[in-house]
């Protein structure tokens, strides 16, 4: 046994030295943390306690021209789950517990997880949107069981008369992966959309997204470790979206919906003097409210597989052969190129033989129209007259004239899916089919067939140009919005040609015209032009209206305006597979015009 004080003290000192070295090591560590890495840890300490919360702007409201609300924001209560640092299993169990007290559909759950995987910068994700009052009170009473579930007051987009305005207003929907890519590539957009969940997808909601949306603000707050609010550091107010007042008239929308409800088709009614759209209707329609919070798969499937294509906007996104509605425009082409004049007439035997060939083109009226001039040709829709006109005019001159009426070009209406249609020409054909133009195609074009395609919006736009005899601003959906681009007042053709053609269209509704059924019942002095567009090119078969499959029946068209002595409103109507223009489309247009004059008084 070493009982020696010297050894004991030496051993004690050894331990003291070791521990002192340990203390030195600790001091170095503290120097590293507090002096060398001070900035880093200060920053960490700051970010520990700072949270940025988005302040969402209110989306602009959409009104009709008489201030009836078409798209509004209604206050709803949503259930949100704080997903930060939670695994999928934890979230499933929270949702499982919630579904014991509230009904949570599979669809809602799927949407929740979809959003969680797509939106990396969101902390809270909505699970159940717009819970009803009963569920609200029930949840509030059990809230203490769900520390991570919060009740969020949120404005939900709601479309009043959604079905009546579906194609026009469109809808908003949750921001998709594709939208997000676009947003994230633009830092300014990323700020504007901070914390937002929805974006305009279709119609006006899409094309006016930037002004309707507004800009997100944010609130920088200090929280403690329990996420309880301590203080506000910074507050940037959100900029609410701008309201839109449309040129559209809700009453006309309702009426047009009513008139079209048994048909596949569309109509557009405009104010002739300023090209403002008053009614914009496509049928069948759908309920845009279904989309606002992510449409369910069943609903989506139903809309997409419906053979009547309810999602198709038949006003601007569908193009049809214009058929005989092209004839007034073609008349202008003939008159201004001196191929015909007011008095020029031909004899129509019921067919036309293309010169230097044996090719025969039939008139729709087998026995022929007899002696016709330009006015009677329009009124009776004489095909042979226009075959002859087109042949003598030639395709180039014909195209040059028709282009002035905006055929083959977009009208510039502010909607996302407008199609330009096709104004056939030798260049167009060579570009798309690598084939040379044939003379008979000129003949087909003259009656709005062949490759000729235009949308109802284009037809009404062309008609407005004709009636005003000048270039028109793009079709406008906004009330009293004047085009920024000054348009020249230069007449596009001699006024007297316009008068001749208008006279022809006026005769359409006379006792000799194709729409003579209203000859004695035309108090609003409607003028116009009927059209029947072949869907199916008849070769050897004869067209038997009663025994042909519905989808192969002719499209029924009508373009018109009223009153003919002082044109105020113009209209284009198309009824798919409706048969003759005079029997379906024209009467609908008349009812619409009559309704217009009834209601504005």
């Amino acid at each position: 046994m070493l009982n020696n004080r010297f050894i004991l003290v030496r051993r004690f000192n050894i331990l003291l030295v070791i521990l002192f070295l340990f203390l030195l090591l600790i001091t170095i560590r503290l120097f590293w943390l507090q002096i060398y890495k001070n900035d880093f840890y200060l920053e960490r300490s700051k970010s520990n306690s700072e949270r940025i919360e988005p302040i969402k702007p209110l989306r602009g409201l959409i009104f009709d021209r008489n201030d009836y609300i078409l798209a509004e924001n209604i206050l709803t209560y949503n259930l949100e789950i704080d997903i930060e640092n939670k695994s999928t299993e934890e979230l499933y169990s929270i949702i499982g517990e919630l579904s014991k007290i509230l009904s949570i559909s599979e669809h809602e759950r799927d949407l929740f997880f979809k959003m969680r995987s797509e939106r990396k910068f969101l902390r809270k994700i909505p699970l159940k949107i717009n819970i009803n009052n009963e569920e609200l009170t029930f949840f509030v009473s059990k809230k203490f069981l769900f520390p991570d579930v919060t009740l969020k007051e949120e404005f939900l987009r709601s479309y009043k008369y959604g079905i009546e305005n579906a194609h026009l207003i469109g809808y908003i929907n949750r921001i998709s992966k594709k939208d997000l890519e676009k947003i994230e590539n633009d830092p300014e957009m990323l700020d504007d959309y901070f914390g937002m969940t929805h974006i305009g997808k279709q119609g006006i909601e899409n094309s006016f997204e930037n002004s309707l949306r507004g800009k997100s603000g944010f609130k920088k707050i200090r929280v403690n470790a329990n996420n309880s609010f301590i203080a506000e550091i910074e507050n940037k107010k959100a900029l609410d979206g701008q309201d839109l007042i449309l040129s559209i008239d809700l009453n006309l929308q309702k009426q047009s919906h009513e008139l079209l409800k048994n048909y596949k088709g569309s109509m557009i009614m405009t104010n002739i003097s300023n090209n403002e759209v008053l009614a914009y209707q496509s049928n069948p329609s759908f309920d845009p409210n279904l989309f606002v919070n992510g449409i369910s798969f069943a609903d989506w499937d139903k809309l997409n597989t419906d053979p009547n294509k309810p999602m198709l906007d038949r006003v601007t996104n569908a193009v049809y052969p214009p058929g005989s509605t092209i004839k007034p425009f073609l008349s202008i082409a003939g008159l201004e190129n001196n191929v015909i004049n007011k008095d020029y007439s031909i004899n129509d035997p019921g067919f036309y033989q293309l010169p230097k060939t044996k090719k025969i083109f039939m008139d729709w009226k087998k026995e022929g129209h007899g002696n016709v001039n330009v006015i009677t040709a329009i009124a009776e829709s004489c095909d042979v007259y226009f075959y002859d006109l087109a042949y003598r005019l030639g395709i180039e001159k014909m195209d040059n004239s028709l282009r002035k009426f905006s055929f083959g070009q977009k009208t510039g209406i502010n909607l996302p899916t407008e199609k330009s249609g096709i104004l056939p020409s030798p260049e167009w054909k060579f570009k798309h089919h690598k084939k040379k133009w044939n003379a008979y195609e000129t003949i087909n074009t003259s009656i709005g067939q062949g490759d000729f395609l235009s949308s109802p919006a284009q037809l009404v736009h062309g008609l407005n140009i004709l009636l005003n005899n000048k270039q028109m601003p793009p079709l406008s959906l906004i009330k009293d919005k004047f085009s920024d681009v000054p348009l020249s007042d230069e007449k596009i053709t001699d006024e007297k040609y316009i008068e001749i053609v208008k006279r022809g269209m006026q005769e359409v509704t006379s006792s000799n015209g194709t729409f003579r059924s209203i000859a004695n019942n035309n108090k609003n002095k409607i003028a116009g032009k009927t059209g029947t567009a072949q869907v199916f090119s008849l070769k050897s078969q004869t067209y038997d209206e009663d025994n042909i499959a519905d989808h192969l029946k002719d499209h029924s068209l009508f373009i018109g305006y009223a009153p003919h002595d002082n044109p105020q409103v113009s209209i284009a109507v198309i009824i798919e597979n409706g048969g003759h223009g005079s029997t379906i489309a024209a009467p609908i247009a008349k009812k619409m015009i009559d309704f217009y004059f009834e209601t504005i008084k």
Partner: protein
Amino acid sequence: MTNLFTFLFSRTDKQLFILLLIILLFSLNLIGQAVGFNSTFFLKQLLFIFAGLMIFMLISILNIRFLFRYSLIIYVLSILLLLFTALFGTEINGSKRWLDFGVFKFQSSEILKLTLPIFLVSLIDYFKNRSQTLTELVFLCISLMPFYIILKQPDLGSGLIILSSGLIIIFLNGLSLKKILIGILGFLILLPYTWLNILKDYQKGRILNLIDPFSNPLDGGYHAIQSSIAIGSGGLIGKSSEFSSQHDLLFLPETHTDFIFAVLSENYGFLGNIIFFLIFLLFIYKLVIISINLHSHSHRLLAMTYVMIFILCFLINIAMVSGLFPIVGIPLPLISYGGSSLFIYLVMFALINSLNYNKTLIAD
């Protein structure tokens, strides 16, 4: 009354006592900053300090020779207390370490810090004429018994402190270099076995967190990260008021107990830490001088062991809070909130003080 105080003070080392008071006042200040100066924790700690100082005074005036005489009984009672805790103790966070006395909970393993060294030191005379190896093996076994019970509570940190108090005595008593090397070798061989079979997952996790705290930020790594942030953001002279502190916002829990050093570092910075270290070094220096100058070998050995335990716990706590050491539940001696730990250390210093005062009276 005045005479009583004069009597008490006359038997204490003045410098040691003043340093002790400074440290305790500093502790109160830090606890106040951590949990608020009007919180019950602060008031209770004030009460503990007051009671602890009374105990310090009382023990200081005792001639503690009798402790050595009854050391076996004291040791057996301590072991029984541990077993009693294992049976009837209060379970907190899955471990049974505390005996609930209503006013405060006593951590029974703390008492072994006092009693194990007393028992071992008292045996030195008994084993005077036996072989050194036998003595060392017996000492090891005596130390391993409480270690095993505490390990089962489970409380690895306290267990290791108790075990090391035994090892320190064996070392100070002249363990040969050969045996030290054999011991280290044995430890290294047993290490993989320990890792695989003895350590629990959460304990392994804490050790792994040391290497990379951010690998598991939510679980064990949370404390390590938050306490590093608290210390690091303190800078040279402490965090300015424009930044909110980690502990005010509750990001770092348990700041008044095991993580009190983080509050010190955050509020007073590197400079504050250095001053704090200097005060402690002065206090330790005082204890070391007293210990070395005690007159009997066993007294010196006991005092030195106590001083070692004190320094060891002090360093381990700071190493743990600053991320150099796994998180083991060892409080900062004299500073952390809590009665058990405070009383034990005050009794330790009182015993050293008493040995010092009575050294002339005790025949060597």
